[in-house]
């Protein structure tokens, strides 16, 4: 089981390493969403600070959602997924390895980029720890929960639109707590409680997520 985990882990890492362009694209997408916002509204500093947590989190949500759209497609098209299914090894372990690499390769960059963008929106440095903490706890949850729906819609036509419909409601707790923590940090309210809840959601998503992804893959391949 451990051997399977590391084999998949190394394979995914190698693939991600060869597609470095995709990583940059996702980061650019995130930066663009956030950067377009001040251009669309007026550049009044109080307005920007008030909406900054929401804008940053919406950017994160959308970038993760887009990155998940094709997460299983290549594996499905070249038959790797079918091999995984037939391998007789727990599919959940394979899913766990795959999603960890996916997080490292795509969402981890957002954790670094988020606070920098926050500074550009005029939020004071005091809110930095809150932003980094919530991004680090929130993005794994987003990846694991989103992958369940991505696996369900694996073979459907127009899967992208449906994926958004299914996943965004499930992302709401992360958005509420994540943006809430940052907003609380900006106005100086206590926010430890919401951080603990985000941590709990993260742990839950990592432990139960792989099982749900495995079940979803089996259903999705039938569709």
């Amino acid at each position: 089981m451990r051997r399977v985990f590391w084999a998949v882990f190394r394979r995914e890492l190698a693939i991600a390493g060869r597609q470095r362009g995709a990583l940059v694209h996702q980061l650019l997408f995130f930066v663009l969403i956030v950067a377009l916002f001040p251009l669309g509204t007026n550049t009044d500093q109080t307005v920007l600070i008030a909406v900054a947590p929401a804008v940053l989190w919406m950017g994160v949500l959308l970038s993760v959602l887009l990155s998940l759209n094709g997460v299983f497609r290549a594996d499905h098209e070249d038959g790797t997924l079918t091999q995984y299914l037939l391998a007789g090894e727990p599919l959940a372990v394979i899913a766990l390895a795959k999603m960890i690499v996916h997080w490292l390769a795509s969402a981890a960059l957002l954790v670094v980029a988020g606070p920098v963008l926050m500074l550009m929106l005029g939020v004071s440095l005091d809110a930095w720890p809150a932003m980094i903490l919530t991004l680090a706890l929130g993005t794994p949850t987003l990846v694991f929960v989103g992958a369940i729906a991505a696996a369900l819609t694996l073979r459907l036509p127009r899967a992208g639109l449906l994926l958004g419909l299914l996943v965004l409601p499930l992302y709401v707790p992360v958005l509420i707590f994540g943006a809430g923590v940052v907003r609380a940090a900006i106005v100086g309210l206590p926010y430890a409680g919401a951080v603990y809840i985000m941590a709990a959601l993260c742990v839950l998503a990592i432990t139960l997520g792989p099982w749900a992804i495995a079940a979803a893959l089996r259903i999705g391949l039938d569709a």
Partner: protein
Amino acid sequence: MTSFTMGKSLRRRFHRLGSLPYFYDVSARWAIWLAVPAVVCIAYTVIAGLVLVPPDYQQGDVFRILYIHVPSAWLSLFAYTTMAGAGVVALVWRLKLAEIFIVAAAPVGASFTGLALVTGAIWGEPTWGTYWVWDARLTSELILLFLYLGVIALHQSIASPRTAGRACALLSIVGVINVPIIHYSVVWWTTLHQGATLSLSGGSHMESDMLWPLLAGALGFSCLFGWLTLWGMRVQLLWRERRSRWVMRRIVNG
């Protein structure tokens, strides 16, 4: 009867439910047993809520909308929980009826959620001073509506009914995380929405004159949910099995 044979006959009854023609025939009889209490209870609640109950000491007559708002909000949560429960049954025991239940219950649950949101908005304007606030209880109820709509959308976009049923089962299970968040949102966060008026453990903060119509409403709405879902299941069943012989025979015989 010994306990052994009783267990055996119970198990036989359970297994017979796996037979779709049997369920189709017997559910027509069950529907009546749900429809009668639903109509009676809801009629009593409406009359009592509008006429018999005294006005509230603070909110006056406005509070009467509670008799629709609270039961539909309860049912919105209850329906989703039963869907998730049926989802577990559908995935673990591969029971076709459980899949059909999820598919049939989703639109009914979505309607109750929509009703709770609309009545809540109508109630909120005069009492809180706003139709809508983005606080925890209201927002999470709105998300529940989107979860229902997601299940419906997923079911519509997968062609094979078996796969669609299992996909919806999994999605309902994943979404059930939202139910405790809604339920406890008024306890965890100090929000505008009031706390629970009734609780199973503690006493209720409501006069008994006001309480009975509310409980009747909850019972009536539950029966209504069961009734509508049962009919939805029957329709689903006919559509799914439209090529099978037992459906043909029932259509030919009327």
